[in-house]
């Protein structure tokens, strides 16, 4: 672990807390699914928590974030209340979107989490638009968009990063390269050694960091955020990481070679970062245990509240197709 000295112990702890909550939330949901306590779908980010920790520290509360279906950790990072995340995952009315959006479509603009998308690559152009709005509104807020390695193969990715580079917009593109797009390894879908090389094709800086290390990931993202805030334009940050639960909850991951999984597990950020933290003079085992306990408890309360809430009622289901119910048009 690098550069840990550049952060205060409270910064480090706060990253760890975000990571713990993210992990606890996902594991709790997976447990509920496996035991038959409830039915839903999630695309777990388990293993990618370091990126969430980094984002939580790098972004200001008024900065914006766009994420994907694999975004529960990012939602936690941006401060979306756990009950809103859990509720949305379970499809109940306490969800961020009253249960209508679902796991893939969580939005919480109060926390700056402007959109989660289920369409790979499509978050990037929208993020560019958020950044454009900041310029119009003369705000110095920054937009971060996170997405996977596979997303960089989409036309949307290219159109968005090119536009952002051309217009020098205050946006940071964070690729969470977990080495797989669904069941396909990254090297089968691109001929470049690093996803960050994509940046060269549009004229912006591209940086590759160890995405299992919250500290170096934070420093890279933070640098890009500062650059964006200073009006110097966008950056592509590639955080190389891994996902331990496969593409979706229940994925048997037969397509992942055993050695690769084993090797990846050695770099599980929840374990390695904990070790790093313990080597910090001001951080004790008790302190970390307290963070973990708090995370577990908050998650438990959130999931119980989410479970207890009703599904959206008929009136709610009919709402929000338009600003007002259409009066004309016998649709």
């Amino acid at each position, binding site marked *: 672990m690098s550069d840990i000295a550049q952060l205060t112990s409270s910064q480090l702890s706060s990253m760890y807390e975000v990571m713990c909550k993210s992990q606890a939330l996902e594991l709790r949901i997976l447990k509920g699914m496996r035991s038959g306590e409830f039915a839903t779908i999630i695309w777990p980010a388990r293993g990618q928590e370091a990126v969430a920790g980094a984002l939580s520290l790098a972004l200001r509360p008024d900065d914006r974030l766009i994420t994907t279906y694999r975004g529960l950790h990012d939602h936690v990072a941006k401060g979306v209340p756990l009950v809103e995340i859990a509720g949305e995952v379970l499809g109940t009315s306490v969800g*961020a*979107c*009253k249960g*209508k*959006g*679902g796991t893939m*479509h969580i*939005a*919480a*603009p109060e926390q700056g989490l*402007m*959109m989660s*998308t*289920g*369409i790979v690559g*499509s978050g*990037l*152009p*929208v*993020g*560019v*638009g*958020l*950044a*454009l*709005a*900041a310029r*119009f*509104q003369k705000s110095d807020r920054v*937009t971060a968009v996170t997405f996977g390695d596979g997303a960089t193969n989409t*036309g*949307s990715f290219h*159109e*968005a990063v*090119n*536009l952002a580079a*051309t217009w020098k917009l205050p946006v940071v593109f964070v690729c969470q390269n977990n080495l797989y797009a669904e069941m396909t390894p990254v090297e089968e879908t691109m001929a470049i050694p690093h996803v960050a090389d994509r940046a060269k094709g549009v004229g912006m800086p591209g940086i590759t960091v160890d995405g299992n290390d919250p500290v170096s990931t934070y420093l890279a993202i933070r640098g890009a955020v500062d650059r964006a805030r200073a009006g110097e334009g966008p950056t592509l940050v590639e955080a190389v990481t891994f996902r331990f639960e496969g593409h979706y909850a229940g994925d048997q991951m037969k397509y992942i070679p055993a050695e690769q999984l084993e090797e990846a597990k050695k770099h599980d950020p929840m374990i390695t970062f904990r070790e790093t933290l313990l080597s910090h003079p001001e951080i004790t085992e008790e302190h970390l245990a307290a963070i973990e306990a708090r995370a577990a408890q908050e998650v438990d309360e959130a999931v119980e509240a989410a479970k207890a809430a009703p599904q959206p009622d008929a009136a*709610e289901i009919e*709402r*929000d*197709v*338009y*600003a007002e119910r*259409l*009066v*004309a*048009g*016998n*649709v």
Partner: protein
Amino acid sequence: MSKKATIREAINSALDEALRTSAQVFLLGEDLADPAAGVNAVTRGLALEHGHDRVLNTPISEAAIVGAAVGASLEGMLPVAEIMIMDFIGIAMDQIVNHAAKLRYMSAGRTTSPITVRAVVLEGSGAGGTHSQSLEGWFMHIPGLKVVYPSTPADAKGLLLSSIFDPDPVLFMEASRLYGKRGPMPTEDGFRIPIGKADVKRQGRDITIVTYGPATWEALEAAEALSAEGIEAEVVDLRTLLPLDLETVLASVAKTRRAVVAHHAVTFGGPGAEVASQITEALFNELVEPVVRVGAKFSPIPARASEAAVTLGTGDIVAAVKKVAGAVRV
């Protein structure tokens, strides 16, 4: 106050008013800023007047154009994105259909995307199959969108302003063949035509021609020709396809008891099928004859002069009306 203006001028005037009266409004699209101001010169002068930072030339990136509009709209901006020729809209389909149209619903109203997408139908230019399509039917089928297609300068101005300030995403269609069409246009700020209100462009007792966009003019021409033969057609210009002003349509057909639906889109699977179905479901017992639809033939559109062999012409409307009303009256 009102003056004679072309539809091109009316759209320009609406964009100008929107830019002038709201700091939330901005335009983006390919080549639309001065000095070029677009292939159709619709946006002429707007960048000079309101600044190149509010009238933005983009790269050729339809997905990013609409996607950036969606993003900006989530922050309260009112972007007006141009799709230079409607046939290119496929490239932006994901942003329009999966994002703009659904973000309000999927976020339970926490985020909204009040964008306006201006899409230009080039039919009539002879440019061929990929530069001539009228694809409004795709968007009518998507909950969350509104679809507007005006036929006169006043409607174009009033509806474009309504679209820009509407809280929902609007596909605003323009027919390049109508850009030069002249007519009265209110000049005072604040003039609006409400979205979702059809307009009876001609009164008639014998049959209703339900239409919109450029076909309105062929319908009016057909009505004149038919009048000479003793058939008085009422012409209902829908102006908005979604929401659809059924009330006005049904009031007219309840009176005439016969209807033809005419548009430039391909007939099969097109907007006319919805309109005809709605009329029939509502007025089955009043109808003397089944509703007949006319539109483009089921073919890609050939280039140059051959285009006319496939696309809607006044004669098609006349023939359809005679089929429905002819036997009775002539």
